[in-house]
């Protein structure tokens, strides 16, 4: 076996986000949590970049675009962040361990992971608790109770002070509104009609999108299945695009929420076909050109 510069070796790998379940075992939640890049990952740092009390992710990648930022827009939960200032020893307090009652131990480190350097402050998720008692095991060997620390802020503990001081309160984080999902064909900006429907998500520069147009034209002409197109083009450009792509079926602009509903890893794969049954309910989402006929056969939509 010989390798060329075009070959892949453990390429296009889905990232991993192992979350611990009630039984102590881990399940990979990378896809369901939106950490679903297929780029070649290298360094990875978690940091609260927007000060809203939850950790965002920055990842470098070998191949383009080389940087990915995963903003945390999920349910926030309770948390605090603790900066440490050592009086005896190095002021950044590396080697110190923060013990949070009912949660666990948090080591202070400056480097972690693969070629990554991080803020030595510790981020403590509290779940549903509003606060927790904190003991700091300083590098000097002294263990100090710094009191009960409340969720909702970044605070600082200075060795020997026996308490924490506020640094800043967390801001209100951006929480994305629930995304509308076109579970029914009536959720799309299309003329209503009876019977099964196929909706092509397309753009003109997408070659496979253009290549599947003849088959969709033929399907539309048969009349058993409604065919529509939703294009990543503005309203004014669509008539010209439709003509250039020689579409005989109706088209409309692709609403952003619909495109976002089918994105993975920050992008929408094109072409994508949405297949709705006679009752108007979404049955399949098909990616890639040339894959519609076997699905129509399987669903028997074209044979009615």
């Amino acid at each position: 076996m010989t390798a060329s510069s075009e070959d892949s070796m453990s390429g296009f790998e889905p990232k991993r986000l192992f979350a611990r379940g009630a039984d102590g075992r881990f399940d990979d939640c990378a896809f369901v949590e939106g950490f679903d890049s297929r780029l070649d990952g290298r360094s990875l740092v978690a940091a609260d970049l927007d000060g809203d009390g939850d950790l965002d992710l920055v990842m470098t990648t070998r191949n383009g675009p080389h940087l990915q930022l995963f903003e945390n827009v999920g349910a926030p939960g309770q948390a605090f962040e603790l900066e440490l200032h050592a009086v005896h020893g190095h002021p950044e307090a590396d080697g110190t361990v923060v013990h949070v009652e009912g949660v666990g131990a948090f080591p202070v480190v400056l480097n972690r992971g693969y070629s990554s350097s991080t803020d030595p402050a510790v981020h403590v998720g509290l779940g549903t608790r509003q606060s927790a008692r904190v003991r700091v095991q300083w590098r000097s060997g002294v263990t100090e109770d710094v009191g009960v620390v409340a969720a909702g802020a970044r605070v600082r503990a200075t060795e020997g002070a026996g308490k924490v001081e506020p640094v800043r309160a967390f801001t209100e984080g951006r929480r994305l509104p629930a995304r509308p999902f076109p579970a029914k064909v009536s959720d799309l900006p299309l003329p209503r009609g009876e019977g099964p429907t196929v909706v092509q998500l397309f753009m003109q520069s997408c070659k496979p999108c253009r290549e599947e147009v003849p088959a969709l034209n033929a399907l539309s002409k048969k009349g058993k299945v409604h065919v529509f197109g939703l294009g990543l083009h503005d309203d004014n450009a669509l008539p010209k695009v439709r003509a250039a792509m020689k579409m005989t079926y109706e088209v409309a602009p692709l609403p952003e929420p619909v495109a976002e509903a089918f994105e993975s890893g920050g992008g929408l794969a094109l072409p994508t076909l949405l297949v709705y049954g006679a009752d108007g309910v979404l049955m399949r989402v098909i990616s890639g050109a040339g894959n519609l006929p076997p699905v129509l056969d399987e669903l028997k939509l074209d044979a009615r």
Partner: protein
Amino acid sequence: MTLVLSLMLTFALAGSPTPREVLQGIDQQETLNLELEAHFDQVCSALKAGRHDLSGLVGPGVRFPIDEFVQVPSCSLRALSVGKVVDDTIALRVLWDLDGRDARGARRSVRAESDGEVVREGKGWKLSRLDTSNAHRVERDAPRFVERAAEAGLVLPQVVTPISPAAFLSSGLAIRDVDGDGIADVFVIDRQTLYLYRGKPGLHFAPPVAIARTGGDTILSGVSLGDLDGDGDPDLVLTTWRDRPVRLFRNEHGTFVEAGKVGRGGQHQGTVLSDLDGDGKLDLAVVSYPLGYAIPSSFLNADNGDPPELWLGNGDFTFHQLPLPARVAKHHWSFGGVAADFLHRGGMQLYVFNDYGVKDLYVLDRDGGVSEVSAQYGLNDPGGGMSADLGDVDNDDRVDLYVANMFSKAGTRIANGVGARVPEATRDLVSKFVRGNTLFLGQPDGGYADHAVDLEVHRGLWSFASLLADVDNDSRLEVLIANGFISGKKRKDL
């Protein structure tokens, strides 16, 4: 090619059978695995294309829970173990994953490690049975993370074409507030340039500023931030792959001025900043990965790399080297390290993760001496070490250690191919190498025990970064892995 050569050297050391016999076994297994992978690719392609009815493609004894999905953008099937061919049938252990959306738009992942069987069909194989009854499921109505680097301004100014063998390993990321405005700033290495993106309110970043550059065939390999002079702000340490000293930059109110160099140079992969000797000043551990200068002397125990350089800080951007005695220095291929009091002695120890072999745990003794004790404490962890992180994974108030290694199709094939052809100890070692990642949980007696497999957190694929972080603030740490070696134009895996 490097892998094959290393394997030959490795098995030559292992005695009989001959390396050629071992490689012949691997070749035979390779052919079979390629046939299986071709079939698995067909199955996944059909599922990703929207087909639910796989009759004709697989046997009736294969029932993926596909009706839970309207879309499956991601599918994977891989053979973890492959039995002997008996009556044109092979028993398999299969790891399978389906990621997709259900009819409500919720994201869902279903996966399991299942027993299965393939039967000969024409020149290939057909999956005839797969017991999917033990599948795990996770589901979210909406994802927690949204990718928005471009929107936030985290975009590199140009895409630099790799120019050296080390370019595919090159990476560097450092995130801290360096200008005291309360917002995190981001440093990124793009092979020959170190960029700073200053954080702005609302998750935006100012256009990047180049902090340092290099040229020719030199690659920047690592960036670290730490307060080298004790003035209250983080300074910057930059390493280079290609015989250049470590570069130091002083933080002057958020701007960075070159303030010194350390060492004579080497194939430096990065640094670990820590007050290793407890004198209140940051020290440097510089690790090296000599790619391009050498090939590993063994796939399983390379000893022709470079030991870490330990530089003790004087608190003024100067450092003096703490030489490692020859009997202590491990000539390994190192990707980095983490520093902590692993041994509960009240001091710091340096854990170095290495490719092609075991990890090292260096201890700075109170008398100024250095020792290496990883095996003594059960932390040597054979494997292709890529990264490590620290945290209390099981919430028992003890710090645990997660180590990223490699879990790849190629590795699994080799382990299957080696089979019974090598001594048991070598076979066990190969199995450990290809297994994936390690989770050392701290024990009540101060020791560590690996629980990665029984907690099912070992298969990070071809891991690079590993990170322990509580991303959902539920008080339990998640384990995140940045992985993927090389994605080429041809998607098929070598």
